[in-house]
């Protein structure tokens, strides 16, 4: 393994790839014979246009971009599955041929047979597979199902098997396409452990994913593709921020994206909302444990409004509500009994935000204090993205404190029901 020299292991120069997509699907000879003279009608899709970059050994690189931006095409050319139309690709080192998990799995074969078949595709020898067999099955936690056909497995079991096999590949360069899209939270946590291990071992990893948080967490560098062009190349955090700006995931929190849902009587309206860091600078990428302030403006439109309450929800991108915060009673007076046209600012400070890596947003509602009528409700008023530099698994940082106290005898024992299992 040549982790010491930092020479480029992947060199891409002026790479271009076009796809000719036939407009009339002519996969019969008859069509070919009767239309052989007329130029076949097709649309040309420029999947990649003049892309150049180099990847040094041991770098963890992420490729991001919207659907159809060419990122999967690029990965497939690097993996030698597609041929480029123009340009040069030079790769130095053993490449893992896997772009996805479980390639080559056959539902009619047993777990054991699939390990040997899929393992052969991965480049593992028969002797090696025999040696690793117990470990693979053990890691996937499938000891009892070794000789069951794969079609009787749940999708979770299949993914576990695929994953524990894939991590045995000893390639120097790994290419992965959306591996994080499958599996539940605990599986993703396993993936991250493996990524961390690859990083320690100095392997080169090319990762195509939609999960910007994983790119931020694991990649040293990211490439941004837009309609086949390389529009961003730099430190992962910068490029993901550029991408978020480009697709309208607000960096300036006040901008309302298309997905915003808003309703209410508008007796009081929200005039704006934003997120600030401790210096009072707008920042929608707070670090875990950092200070964050949600700030919103209101204006009263109707004299009949006596006083109102402000409610803020912190929502994860998958829709899970993480927290609900209400303006406390002690502060009603400040917003109540105001005249029409009166306005103000409400602040909600989070001294140490406990959230880990991920995309979140703030929902805000202004409601009547007595009847609970909705004056103005806004979903995703601010979108923000927490960046955890520690790369930890899980959802929150509980802020726990560790300590170790040596004693001569064990002081902490088991309750009686566990005592037997201790021996």
């Amino acid at each position: 393994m040549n982790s010491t020299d930092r020479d480029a292991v992947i060199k891409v120069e002026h790479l271009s790839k076009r796809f000719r997509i036939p407009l009339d699907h002519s996969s019969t000879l008859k069509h070919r014979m009767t239309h052989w003279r007329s130029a076949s009608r097709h649309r040309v899709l420029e999947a990649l246009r003049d892309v150049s970059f180099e990847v040094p050994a041991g770098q963890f690189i992420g490729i991001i971009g919207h659907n159809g931006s060419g990122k999967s095409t690029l990965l497939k050319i690097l993996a030698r599955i597609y041929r480029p139309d123009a340009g040069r690709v030079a790769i130095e080192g053993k490449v893992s041929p896997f772009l996805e998990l479980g390639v080559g799995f056959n539902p009619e074969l047993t777990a054991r047979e699939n390990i040997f078949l899929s393992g052969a595709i991965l480049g593992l020898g028969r002797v090696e597979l025999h040696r690793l067999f117990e470990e693979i099955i053990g890691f996937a936690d499938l000891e009892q199902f070794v000789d069951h056909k794969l079609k009787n497995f749940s999708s979770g079991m299949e993914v576990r098997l695929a994953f524990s096999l894939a991590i045995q590949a000893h390639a120097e360069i790994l290419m992965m396409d959306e591996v994080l899209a499958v599996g539940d939270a605990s599986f993703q946590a396993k993936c991250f452990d493996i990524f961390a291990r690859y990083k320690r071992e100095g392997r080169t990893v090319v990762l195509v994913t939609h999960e910007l948080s994983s790119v931020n967490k694991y990649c040293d560098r990211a490439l941004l593709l837009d309609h086949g062009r390389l529009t961003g190349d730099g430190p992962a955090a910068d490029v993901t921020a550029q991408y978020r700006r480009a697709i309208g995931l607000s960096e300036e929190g006040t901008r309302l994206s298309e997905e915003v849902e808003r309703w209410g009587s508008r007796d009081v309206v929200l005039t704006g909302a934003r997120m600030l860091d401790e210096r009072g600078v707008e920042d929608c990428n707070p670090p875990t444990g950092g200070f964050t302030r949600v700030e919103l403006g209101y204006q009263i439109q109707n004299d009949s409004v006596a006083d109102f309450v402000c409610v803020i929800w912190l929502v994860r991108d998958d829709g899970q509500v993480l927290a609900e915060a209400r303006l406390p009673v002690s502060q009603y007076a400040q917003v109540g009994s105001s005249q029409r046209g009166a306005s103000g600012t409400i602040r909600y400070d989070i001294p140490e935000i406990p959230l880990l890596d991920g995309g979140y947003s703030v929902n805000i509602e202004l409601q009547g204090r007595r009847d609970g009528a909705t004056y103005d409700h806004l979903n995703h008023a601010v979108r923000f993205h927490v960046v955890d530099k520690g790369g930890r698994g899980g959802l929150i940082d509980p802020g726990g404190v560790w300590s170790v106290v040596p004693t001569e005898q064990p002081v902490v024992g088991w309750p009686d029901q566990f005592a037997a299992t201790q021996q």
Partner: protein
Amino acid sequence: MSTNADVQLAGPDARPATRLDTLRHYRHLTLELAISQFKLRYTQSVLGYFWSLLKPAMVFAITYFIFVDLFDIKDGTHFYGIQLLLGIVIWTFFAECTASSMQAIASNAALIRKTYFPRSILVIAASMSSLFTFLINLVIVFVIAVVLRQIDVSLRIVVVLPLLIELYLLALGVALFLSALFVQYHDVGHLWDVLMQLLFYGSGVMFSLTYVLQRLHLVEAVGQTKYIPPHYIWIVELMVCNPIMQTIEDLRHALLTPQAPWTELVVTGHLVAVHQLHPLNTPWLLPVPFLAVALILTIGALTFRARARSFAENL
């Protein structure tokens, strides 16, 4: 298409040790794919692998009943039964091998779109899994022949291996050609079905070359003529050029009995004295079946190589 395009694997992959490693990997992969396909072929059936034995046996029973019991056609050669069985086993291999290998690329679309290895491995693996079945069947035919004492073993048996290699290379050449075209033109599947019907009769599965010559001779004898008119001879000459006919005839000769005509003898007319036939003295046709195999393999491999690079995009 790709004029100035290039994907290089420089450095470690160019080292001889790594290249050997890669070669070993591909060989191992081919074998694993062949074994799994062999297992998969008979999955979901009660009799499983026995179907590969049962199928030629049933075809044999039907053919034998019609030809020997019903019409009393025995083609005049010794041990007709076992020769018929051998012909059917060889034919079954060729038919199944080409039919299943033709689908090798199209039916493995997921594999081709997701991972890289030389695409020909898929076709070779599919043809090898047919070859396993064939070799087992061949051993069974041999055992039956020994039990029935319908065999006359001699040193001729050493020719069996080169003949089997020739037959396999022919099937592989056809499979490479068909599988490459099948990706874009499913028509070749239907076309091949029809062609196989023609080839079945043109390959002497149910009769030997001697029998064809005899029949032609008899027809002419009734017509009071001593000689086969030239417009009949071309059929025989064409059959002599057919490499499947040649391998079936030669395998019968090498494996079973010296009475089965050796292609060479037929072509050079040495059998004439024995059977009092019109001599088919065309020694220049002798290398044609071998050249045909070489040509088909070359065309198949070249067609495959030219189209393989775009398989992932066309599937």
